[in-house]
């Protein structure tokens, strides 16, 4: 097999923007860089600021580049400065001559960048990993309704207009056709969850063009022994925002009988509560007050602290009210052999097997979550039973190998 020259492009560099998508892209880049089948791999992360005069380019490390880019138009994912695409980005493509360009998102970069790869060369393989449901849903790619936060099962111009009354239905049709015209030239899609593949397939993408490859995670080399402090610890990890369902968890806590409350502790690990809308902030603060005896808010954490934090946790709770795709926290929990208690929808329900590697509860229903917690408390053996079934998440090496195989199997003539 001839060696590949690979560009991995993400909507941020994880050292600057700590997001799941950025980390997944970067981990893939590290894996490719270390692989002998790869002649050279370069990571390009979008940067919000430009340090240099008259060029969007900058450098983090010699093979980790920064590309300043703004995309004010979120409706069409349109790049603000088109010349950056056909002049600056293109000049790099022409000098680097990639055989594979793999986009992990087009947000902040604009869809035009994707097309420019094929403008540069039809024989360069163009891959796009899909994160969230952005192409389908204008509500931050979440597929939940604005206002009510109810789950959305399928997009249509009429329904989308109901979520955004000030945008005509015909505009949503145009948006869909526009985005699909860019997706049309992509040689291969990747999705970390089967659920997402199904959603995109219902939207009209050819599911045979979407490969399912789970994100790779660094191994948890120091698997700590579990520390039991007599209380059963249920921990939440992630941003404290309405979509992650922290309020559902706290409301469930309020519903628990006293006897159960005495035996558990609920940990919140996450940041960004200060940036949330006022009413949500107030709701959370009140719930925290009411449950102050059993809930502790530990604040934010660095990714490298996770193994230690997880070593003190019995269950990871993921109460998201939106579908999720492939939440990294599930992989991190499994790497630490911690079972997961999660909403029964989307990517969560796919990755956590009910009764085997975790427990499902009805999405958005505090009463059902409370019942599940009671069940867990009353069944001592359950935790260890499930723990035994948990397998670690895919390694970066394995993820990388699957990607390389995928790249080599792409048939451009097809």
């Amino acid at each position, binding site marked *: 097999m001839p060696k590949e020259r690979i560009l991995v492009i993400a909507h941020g560099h994880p050292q600057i923007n700590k997001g799941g998508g950025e980390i997944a892209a970067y981990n893939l880049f590290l894996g490719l860089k270390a692989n002998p089948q790869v002649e050279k791999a370069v990571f390009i992360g979008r940067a919000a600021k430009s*340090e240099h005069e008259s060029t969007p380019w900058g450098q983090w490390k010699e093979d980790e580049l920064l590309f300043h880019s703004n995309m004010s138009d979120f409706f069409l994912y349109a790049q603000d400065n088109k010349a950056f695409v056909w002049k600056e980005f293109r000049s790099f493509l022409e000098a680097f001559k990639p055989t594979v360009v793999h986009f992990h998102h087009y947000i902040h970069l604009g869809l035009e960048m994707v097309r420019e790869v094929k403008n540069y060369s039809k024989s360069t393989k163009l891959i796009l990993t899909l994160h969230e449901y952005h192409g389908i849903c204008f509500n931050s790619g979440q597929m939940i309704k604005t206002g009510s936060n109810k789950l959305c099962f399928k997009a249509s111009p009429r329904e989308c207009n109901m979520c955004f009354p000030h945008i005509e239905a015909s505009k949503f049709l145009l948006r869909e056709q526009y985005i699909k015209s860019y997706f049309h030239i992509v040689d291969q899609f990747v999705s970390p969850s089967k659920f997402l593949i199904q959603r995109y397939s219902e939207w009209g993408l050819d599911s045979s063009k979407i490969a399912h490859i789970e994100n790779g995670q660094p191994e948890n080399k120091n698997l700590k022994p579990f520390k039991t402090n007599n209380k059963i610890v249920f921990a939440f990890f992630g941003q404290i925002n309405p979509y992650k369902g922290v309020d559902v968890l706290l409301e469930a806590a309020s519903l628990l009988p006293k006897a159960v409350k005495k035996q558990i502790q609920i940990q919140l690990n996450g940041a960004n509560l200060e940036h949330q809308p006022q009413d949500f902030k107030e709701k959370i603060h009140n719930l925290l007050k009411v449950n102050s005896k059993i809930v502790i808010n530990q604040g934010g954490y660095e990714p490298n602290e996770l193994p230690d934090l997880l070593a003190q946790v019995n269950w990871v709770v993921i109460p998201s009210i939106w579908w999720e795709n492939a939440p990294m926290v599930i992989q991190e929990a499994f790497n630490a052999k911690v079972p997961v208690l999660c909403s029964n929808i989307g990517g969560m329900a796919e990755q956590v097997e009910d009764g085997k590697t975790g427990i499902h509860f009805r999405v958005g229903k505090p009463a059902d979550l409370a019942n599940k917690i009671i069940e867990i408390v009353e069944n001592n053996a359950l935790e260890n039973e499930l723990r035994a079934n948990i397998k670690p998440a895919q390694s970066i090496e394995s993820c990388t190998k699957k990607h390389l195989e995928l790249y080599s199997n792409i048939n451009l003539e097809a």
Partner: protein
Amino acid sequence: MKFPFSSSSGKKVQQNLNNAHFSIDYLGKIENNLIVFGWLFDPNKLIVSANFYAQNKILSTVEIDKVLRFEREDVNTHFNLNSTSEKLGFLFQISNPVLDEPQLDISFSAAEEQLDSKSIKIQTFEQEDFLESLQNLTTNDRQAIITTLTDLKIWKKSKPEKLNQEKPKSKKSKVQFHIDNSFVFESAIFTSGWIADPDQEAHLISFSQKGKTIFKSSIEEVANISRTDVQDFLRKSEVEVPLKCGFIKAFKLENSIDASKDVEIFILNKEGEILKMVVISSKLAEIKNFKKITENIFGTFPISHEKLFEIYDNHIGPFFKELTPIWKKKKNKKVYTYGKQNQNPEVSLVVPLYGRWDFLNFQLAIFCNDTDFSKVELIYVIDDPSIADAVIGHSNAIFPIYQLPFKIVYGGENFGFAGANNLGVSEATGKYVLLMNSDVFPKKQGWISELIKQYNLYPDAGIVGPRLTYEDESLQHEGMVFEKNKFLKGFWFNIHPGKGQPKWIFNHNNTKEVPMLTGACMLMLKETYLQVNGFDEDYLQGDFEDSDLNMKVKELGLKSYLAPQVELYHLERKSQSLFNNSDWKLKLTLYNAWQHTKKWNNEIETLNKELQYA
């Protein structure tokens, strides 16, 4: 009636007295009388008196009602007054003026405000001269004046009335013609404004001074500018004009003129009849103020104009070229030395300082550990009066710390990149000159020796330059190439290929010929520098003088070589435009680009064919 005075920059002229204007066409002294002849346009009838000053002291005040008024059809036409009951002309006479001055300041005032005064030279009254200034009047008006003067015993009837047979007749027409901006210089004129010509009568535009034609051209030879404001204004009187009714007309004059005097502009039809006349004045003070005049002129056209290059080529370019000599500042060179200078240095390192001079401190700290500097003559040029004291003072304080000898050269003004480097080289005694920006910092010691070594490896080297990177190690410069821009057609621009991209992108590891090298760091023989007369100071402020130097050196048959093994940081900052106006800066850059393109177009096309960058 109000005129749309705004140009593309949307400036509005403000008058204290609601658009009142006046002009003094003639001021003459005869025996014991001063004759003042001119016109006053005072639509709101606020003016009460005319005032005469000499040396800031009031000489005389005349009530406006007591002054002889007569029709001035030419002025009526200028202000579009169709009803001829207006008598805008005036003639008055001041008896027995106590006067030693060669000129008077004249102005008109209302109850509480006064129009800006005009300074007019007093001529000795000559009937012939005076007759000339009556040229534009109708026969009736002329007669009325002569009669008055005869009654005053000023006019000598013996001379027959001379009619200037050459003078073209005025013709009533639908043409409207207005000047928004004008500058009269002794060897060039700039005008911009608009013309409405619904019946397409206008054929020629003619400029004259004191009755003599100084320039004439077809009305088509102007740059057409979109003016939606004029369209809207004229629609109110139900006149339709094309969108591009604005114009710019600038040109060089064949013969010098008196820049202190007014100039008349005539629009003539095919038969040579005057359709319209406008008078413009010089504004010499504004012309000498580089900032003011360039701001004014750049405001008359948009950067998006599809014939932008032609605007520069036909109008802006020739006009600025004439003005360049008066914008040039004189160099009052002062040299300050710190420490015992190296005898017989091999290289003179010239570094201009502008704005951020703290770079000096960083450079000295880095240079002083480099043994190369025992053969270097280090010359800093202060190109910014606002930092001069600070730099000289600071150098006294820090020299003892670094013990690295250096010189400071100061010319008293800001000369720009070209002038500052030329000034520095004028104090250079080394065999080589190494020109460097203050924000360039070496990464390794011995970089100068290495550059010289590379220079000498190539006998046809004219200039040698290193690779420059940003602080994050990405490329800032690895040679420059010429490119055209699809938005700004016609101009050649310099670009740095690979800017911001990683160092390995072009795989340049060895010295190679490149089309051009940046002036941020270049080494050449001083002899070569002097042979091409250094940097061309006709490039205003900065831009293109370095590529111009490269091209001049190529004319000698020498080449520009990039030595990528030598690497320095160039901490190029995002430019802070001097006047916080990026449109102005861009248009000034385009002037330099135009000059450069005019000079080198053919050579650049050849160069691009013969030398590929990568």
